[in-house]
């Protein structure tokens, strides 16, 4: 099985490519004769060629293996494979992604940046309640007034930040893009033979 190699070949990567093509008769006549001239002059290149030839010959000694069963198809195996994945999920996710992108585009295009969107408007009610609470507190306990005023200021601050936040359309954009990406990826995978 083994044999001792007293010398080590030191050919470059380009030389190996030339030698590999030379073994398969893939060099042009000019390249072939140039390489043969070098082989006559460079012992290291001759060693490299001998080793490459020995490598390909070792690979060619591998006998074909006999499979342990036949791979002929029957109706049952075909039905099973068709049932396993029929492409509805990618189609549905692509469609859902498209709808999400459309919704996000509509939201981004129709809502003026300064106006609070409908869900945000609902959040504007707490200050009214806070005002009423403050009026009652003024009547009942003047000492609490200053604390309630601080609380009210805290509640109103986030309202400004939230009312201009474009998060819902952005989330829709992201999810939509991901779903369409999944559907496209599946489609490309199916096109691959």
């Amino acid at each position, binding site marked *: 099985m083994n044999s001792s190699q007293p010398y080590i070949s030191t050919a470059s990567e380009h030389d190996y490519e030339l030698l590999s*093509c030379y073994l398969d008769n*893939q060099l042009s006549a000019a390249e072939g004769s140039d390489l043969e001239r070098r082989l006559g002059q460079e012992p290291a290149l001759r060693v490299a060629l001998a080793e*490459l030839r*020995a490598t390909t010959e070792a690979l060619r*000694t591998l006998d*074909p293996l*006999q499979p342990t069963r036949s791979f002929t*198809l029957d109706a049952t195996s075909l039905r099973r494979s*068709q049932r396993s994945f029929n492409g509805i999920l990618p189609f549905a996710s692509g469609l859902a992604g498209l709808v999400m992108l459309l919704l996000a585009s509509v939201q981004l295009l129709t809502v003026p940046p300064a106006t609070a969107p409908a869900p945000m408007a609902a959040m504007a009610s707490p200050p009214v309640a806070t005002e009423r609470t403050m009026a009652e507190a003024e009547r009942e306990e003047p000492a609490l007034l200053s604390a309630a005023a601080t609380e009210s200021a805290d509640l109103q601050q986030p309202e400004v930040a939230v009312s201009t936040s474009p998060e819902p359309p952005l989330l829709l954009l992201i999810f939509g893009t991901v779903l369409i990406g999944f559907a496209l990826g599946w489609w490309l995978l199916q096109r691959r*033979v």
Partner: protein
Amino acid sequence: MTNEEQRLIEASRLGDLEAFNQLVRIYEVRIYNLCYRMLGDHDAAADVAQETFITAFAKIGHFRGNFFRAWLCRIATNECYDLLRARKRRPTLSLSAHHDLDEQPFDLPDRGESPDEFAQRRELAAAIQESIEQLPSDQRIVVILSDIQGFTYEEIATVTATNLGTVKSRLSRARSRLREILRAKGCLRLD
């Protein structure tokens, strides 16, 4: 591609399963061997070969050209790549992936081959298979197709969906790397 093969392909396109099964019988050993050399595992190779023929039957309507075996090998290669990627994500140890004993389950000694020679041949085959598995998958497929299956560079380019230049450089790197591994194992015969 022979006329008979062309006829079988046309019949298969029309849904004739028996015609397709004749194509399977022609190519099953080749496809199984390609899968085994890529994966190094008999069970996985058999599963992938089966999947290859199922896919081929489903997509035979898309087949164009004259290289049917290259087209089949391309399907098998893609299936092997999918499995190798899945293995990378979820590494498992296959019980049948031992090359020392089961390189060839039904291998018998050649006529005139002594038990020693037979054992030596199997040992060499196992060492070569181990060496092939150490190559990156893009180089592995090229060297299997070229040096084990005897494909031309053009066919290899079709199977791997690359150009001739890429085939040449991958093959050269694969052979060079294999040479190093086999030399380290003491498996290279220099006459």
